[in-house]
């Protein structure tokens, strides 16, 4: 706020629904003044979603475990974790997940897994995607922009294989490099229109050198501002914890991913996972709304 005139110009732009330039975004990303950044991102976020914040309850299940044990009735998406050694193993895991999931979405694997499975099977990534999709996979869970050389090609293949709700992630790229990644994603969205969500906070966490709160909220805000054509900016509830996830909602995030599907409440119903996420969303000034793994609201 100590740069009033430039801030007013940026506020006029985002209020009018106009995109910010790469230069503006770069400057915003480099300033420690996070509150103006948060205000700008909040304007975009409210224009797209009003006061609604969606959340998704996910059942995480290792590919080689029994899905019937891990998939709780409250889960709205079954997410397969780990990497099977063979394509047949991956297909078997998807089929098993699909059998338990019923109508619910099934996601799993990363793009690197897809390439690895293709290499192992001596086939193409396109064919791997086709088989996984036919087996019942709804989404590739991790598409880390910082580890994919040709994101356009990957999106092309996903669309060709009928993956409709693409979610982009970041593996461990440093904060300084994330703005360019998000701008690239926004550019590709104009071509492919298949990206439903972007989860801009790193999925690979370094316990000895964790990201900082400033880093995290700036990353979320820059993602919201740089990619106004991507519907949702996500924050991972389990990975980043309730406090940071909640604050991120005031910096442009509109979707809380990876809420545990467990609904046991040994400390009372007010501290049950579902109540906790809803309470945090409301305390941030928003209205919670549950969605399914295909981004449809649950009535």
């Amino acid at each position, binding site marked *: *706020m100590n740069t009033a005139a430039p801030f007013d110009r940026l506020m006029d732009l985002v209020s009018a629904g106009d995109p910010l330039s790469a230069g503006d975004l770069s400057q915003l990303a480099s300033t420690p*003044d996070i509150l103006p950044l948060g205000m700008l991102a909040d304007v975009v976020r409210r224009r797209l979603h009003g006061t609604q914040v969606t959340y998704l309850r996910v059942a995480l299940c290792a590919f080689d475990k029994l899905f019937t044990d891990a998939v709780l009735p409250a889960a709205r998406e079954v997410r397969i974790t780990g990497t099977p050694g063979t394509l047949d193993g991956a297909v078997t895991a998807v089929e098993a997940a699909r059998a338990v999931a019923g109508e619910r979405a099934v996601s799993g694997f990363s793009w690197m897994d897809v390439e690895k499975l293709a290499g192992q099977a001596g086939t193409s990534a396109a064919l791997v995607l086709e088989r996984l999709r036919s087996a019942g996979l709804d989404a590739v869970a991790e598409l880390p922009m910082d580890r994919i050389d040709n994101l356009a090609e990957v999106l092309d293949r996903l669309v060709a294989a009928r993956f409709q709700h693409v979610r982009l992630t970041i593996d461990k790229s440093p904060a300084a490099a994330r703005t360019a990644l998000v701008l690239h994603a926004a550019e590709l969205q104009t071509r492919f229109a298949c990206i439903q969500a972007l989860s801009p906070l790193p999925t690979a966490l370094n316990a000895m050198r964790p990201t*900082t*709160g400033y880093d995290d909220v700036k990353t979320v805000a820059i993602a919201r501002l740089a990619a106004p054509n991507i519907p949702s900016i996500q924050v991972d509830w389990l990975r980043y914890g309730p406090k*940071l996830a909640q*604050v991120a909602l*005031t910096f442009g995030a509109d979707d809380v991913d990876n809420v545990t599907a467990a609904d046991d409440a040994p400390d*009372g119903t007010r501290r049950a996972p579902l109540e906790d996420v809803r309470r945090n969303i409301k305390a941030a*000034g928003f209205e919670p709304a549950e969605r399914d793994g295909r981004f449809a609201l649950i009535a």
Partner: protein
Amino acid sequence: MMINEIAQKVMGGGRVDRAEAIELYRHAPTHLLGHLADAIRARKHPGRIVTYIIDRNVNYTNVCVARCNFCAFYRPVGSSEGYVLGFEEIFTKIDETIAVGGNQLLLQGGHNPDLPIAWYEDLFRSVKARYPTFKLHALSPPEVLHISRLNEIPVPQVIERLIAAGLDSIPGGGAEILVDRVRKLLNCYGKASSDEWLDVMRHAHVAGLRTTATMMYGTVETDEERIEHLMRLREVQDETGGFTAFITWSYQPEHTERGGTEATGVDYLRTLALARIVLDNFDNLQASWVTQGGKVGQLSLAYGANDMGSVMIEENVVRAAGASYCMDELEIVVNIEDAGFIPKRRNMHYEVLGDPIFRERDVPRMLSLATARAGGDSSVPEELQNYPARSRRAKQQRASIGD
């Protein structure tokens, strides 16, 4: 008054009243609250310096007769898990504190009926004899009151005697919410009413001590009562100017009799920002990373805080209630610099002592906070036999020392 008018008043350096404070707290967008608080922080600390202290949070006893229902740390008199630290144990903790660049103990404990004032005086004198420049930031107002009642000595004399023994300053613990309706519901009215808590601080300030002030929110109080708490602190600060800093944190419910839920991270940032706006006569606001974690702790610097609190080294009370965050000096400094501020070490008076210690010499990394004692250590310090006990169990324990 509308939010915008109140915001303009704050930006112009005006003081908010109760009604304006409640309007801001309830209706101002979080970013606006942060913006107002940050503007006041910048006005008071234009050099972008953010301070921290290297000290150790030591709890000399967990035996307590107060029985506050929000506390998971205390053990009742006679409990097999009750402890009193020995002087030698405390000296060892001081040695470890000095080794990482520390200069002070934050020394607080339960209201133990078996520790007469002479125990505190002897402890303080022993510390000062061994470590003449080491500071004792010790005994919150309810502890001072407890000593006063137990020994039948008026509060001003208790403070005088403790100062003579080596007390340097008083921490603002035990304030919770300074509204008696709330204190009765939390079962902490008996340990100190609102007036009693504030009076101890007045006496301390008159005696020449500087103190801090705190607020634990998120139990049963209303928004108005949080603001009443801030207003009462502001009044005393207008009178005495003796508070160096204000620290707020959220109630930690795990393992407590009261139970319930913890207030959220956004609640914390809003409460901190409001405190910066209302407490216009306080220079320093600490971030409570120990209850909020490092990330929200760092974000506090955008919502009015100018101090990252203590490296702490040891923590027992909040940990007992479920929070177990840890930040060593390196991590505190990284967080301050990452937020665009300049880190400086300070003392309790908020005087800058210098740059980070770890940049001057090697200090060990600290990845978890220490505890008062190793698990299972139920030893009874030998020197306790020099002090009369009131409870049966303590009498028995002391009689058997040396057997």
